[in-house]
C-alpha cells in the first residue's frame, strides 16, 4: 500500500520538480534575455548619444572655423591700406615728402666740399662705411624721413 501510495505519489513529485525547474529555467532565460536587451539598448542609446554629441561638436567646430575665417577677413579689411591711410589722415598725418639723409663721416675731418659724382664703377668695399656709421646714418634717416605731422 505504501509502495502503491509511494508509487502513486512519485510521479506527482517528479512532475512538480519538473515544473519548478522549467519555471526556474524560463525565469533565468527571461532574466538573461532581459539583461541582454537592456544592455543592448543601453549601448545603442549611449552610442547614439555619443554620435549626436560628436556631430554637434563637429558642427560647432565648423561654425567656429567659419567664424574664424570671417573674423580674419574683418581684421584684414580693417587693416587694409585704404583704411589705414584714411585713419592716418584723420589723425593729421601726411605722407613723407622727401627724406633728408645726413651722413656721418666719423671723427676724421676731410674735404667735404664736393661729394663724389656718379660713376659706373663698383664701390670699393674697403672704403664703404662701417656698420656703426651705417647704423647712425640709418637712424638719422629714420628720424628725418618719418611721417611729418
Amino acid at each position, binding site marked *: 500500500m505504501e509502495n502503491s501510495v509511494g508509487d502513486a505519489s512519485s510521479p506527482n513529485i517528479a512532475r512538480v520538480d519538473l515544473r519548478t525547474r522549467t519555471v526556474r529555467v524560463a525565469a533565468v532565460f527571461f532574466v538573461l534575455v532581459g539583461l541582454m536587451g537592456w544592455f543592448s539598448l543601453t549601448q545603442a542609446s549611449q*552610442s547614439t548619444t555619443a*554620435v*549626436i554629441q560628436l556631430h554637434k561638436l563637429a558642427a560647432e567646430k565648423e561654425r567656429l572655423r567659419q567664424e574664424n575665417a570671417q573674423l580674419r577677413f574683418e581684421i584684414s579689411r580693417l587693416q*587694409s*591700406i585704404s583704411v589705414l591711410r584714411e585713419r592716418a589722415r584723420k589723425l593729421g598725418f601726411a605722407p613723407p615728402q622727401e627724406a633728408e*639723409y645726413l651722413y656721418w663721416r666719423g671723427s676724421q675731418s676731410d674735404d667735404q666740399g664736393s661729394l*663724389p659724382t656718379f660713376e659706373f664703377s663698383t664701390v670699393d668695399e674697403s*672704403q664703404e662705411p662701417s656698420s656703426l656709421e651705417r647704423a647712425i646714418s640709418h637712424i638719422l634717416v629714420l628720424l628725418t624721413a618719418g611721417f611729418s605731422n
Partner: protein
Amino acid sequence: MFAESSSGPRRRLVVVWALFSLFVLVLMGRLLYWQVLRRGDLLQIAAQEHYLSRTIYPQRGMILDRHGQFLATSIFGYDVFARPRAIDDPLHTAERLATILDQPPGDIFDLLVGDGPGVTLARAISMDRGEYLLSLGLPGIEAVSMPRRGYPEGTLAAHLLGFVTLDGEGFYGVEGWYDEVLKGLPGSRGGAEDPSGLTTIAGYGSYIPPRDGATLILTIDRTIQSIVEEQLDRAMADSKAEAGTIIVMDPKTGAILAMASRPTYDPNRYWETEPQELFNNPAISQLYEPGSVFKVVTMAAALDSGLVTPGSTYEDRGSILVGGRPIFNWDYSVRGTTTMTELLRYSLNVGAATLSTHLGAEKFYEYVRRFGFGEATGVDLMGEFPGLVRVPGDPDWYESDLGTNSFGQGIAVTSLQMITAVAAVANGGYLVQPYVVEKVITEEGETLTQPKIRRQVFLSETARVLTKMLVEAVSGETSLAKVPGYTIAGKTGTAQIPVPGGYDPVWTVASFVGYAPAEDPQFIILVELDRPESAPWGSVVAAPVFRAIAQELFTYLGIPPDAVRLAQVPQS
C-alpha cells in the same frame, strides 16, 4: 462507410499539410531570395534611404603680400533657396525676405509662386544676414553656408589677383593660374539620419577630412602697390587718359613688386563688372605698339654687335627711305651729324632706322627675339599674350618693317614684355622670367620660387654702356622723370595707335620705362597711358608719373641719394 469517413479527413489533412508545407517552402524561398541573394541590394537601398554624406568644404588657400598682409582670404556666405510648395503664405514670406535679401518683394514673390520644386533666391549673402534668416524659421526657406572669396583690400591689385566665382573656380591672375593649388580637396562626413533629420549613427566610418588649399606669398608689396595705384589714378585724372598700366619690378630677379591697370573692378563683386573685358589684365594681355621705348632694343643690338659705340655718329638728314617707305623724325627735325647718345636723347627715328638697316634684318630680328618679344614671358598669371612680331619670311612682313620696327612701330608687345626687356639692360644683360608668387606653403612644407634667367641677351659691358646712355637720355630728353639726388636711366615712348588703314591721327600711347639707381637698380618702373587728352607725349604725361613713384619708393625702400650711397669714407 466508416472507412470512407476516416480516410476523407486524413486525406484532407494530408492536402492541408502539403499546402502548408508548400507555403512554408515558398516563404522560405522568398526569405532566402531577399535575405541572402538580394541582401546587398537591400542594404544599399536602406543606406540610400537613411545614409547621408555631407561635403566638408576646404578653405581655399590664402594669398598674402610679401610682408604677410592678406590680399585674399576664404570667407563664408549663405546661399538662400526656397521650396515653393512648402510655403503657406508667399506674400508674407516675400515681404520678410525682401529686407534681408535686399531685393524687391515683387521679384521674390514671383519666384515663390513658381512651379519648380526649388528655386535659388540669393547667393553669397553675408553670414549675419544668413544667420538672421535662419533664426526666422520661415517655412520652405533654406539657407546653406557656402565658402566664398574675400579680398580685404578691395580693388587693390584686382587684375593681378583675379577672382573666384561663387562656384569656387578661380579665374584670371593668380587665382586662375594657381587654382588647383589654392582650391584644396573637399572632405565628407557620412551618417544615418532619422526622419527628423537628426544624425543617429555615425555612418559606416566614412569621415574624410578636407584638405585646405595652399597659401601663396606673393612678391607684391601692398604698400608699393598702393603707391602705384594712387599715382595711376592721379595720372588718369590729370591726363584724362582712357586707360593705363604701371608695373614695378625688381630687375635683377624678375619679382613683380606692383602691377596695376585702370579701369579696374572689384573682385569682391566681380559679377557686377561690365564689360567683362575688364577682367583681362592689360599688363599681360593688351598689345600695343611701344614706340620709342623700343629704341633701347635697337641700340642694344647695335652696341652688342659692335656696329657702334656711344660716340659713333651718323648723318641725320631728317628722313630715310627703308623698303620704299620714308621715315621721318618725330618732330621732322634734321640733326646733321649725330652721336648714338644724342640719338637716344632726342629719340630720333631716322637714327634708329639707320641702325636697324645697317644691322640687317636677320641680326636685328635675332636680337628682338632674344629680348623676348613674340613669346610669352612665362609669368605665373593667367591670360598672358605672346605679342606680335612679324619677321622676314612671314607673308605680312615688308622690308619697310625693318625701319619702322626699330622705333617701335609695326610691332605689338605687352607692358610686361617691354619692362622685362629693359630690365635686361638694368641687370647686366639677362632676360629674367617675371614672377609674382614668392612662396607656396602647403601642409608638406614650403616651396620657394627661385628667380629664373631665361637667357643672356647681350654682354654685360653692353648693358653698362647702354645704361649710361639712358641716364643721358633722361637728363636731356625728359627732365620730368628726374628725381633730385638720384641717377635714373630711362626712355620715353609715344606711339601712334594703329587703326584699319593706318594710324589714328589724334590718339597715342604715352609711356616711360626707367630704373634706379642706375648703377645698382633696385626697381624698374613702366608707365603706360592710353589716349591721354592733356598731351600725347610720353615725356610729358608718363615721365612725371615715374618720377612721383620713384620718389616715394626711394623713401619707402630706404634708398639714399647717390651722394650718400656712393660716398667714400676714409678708414680711421
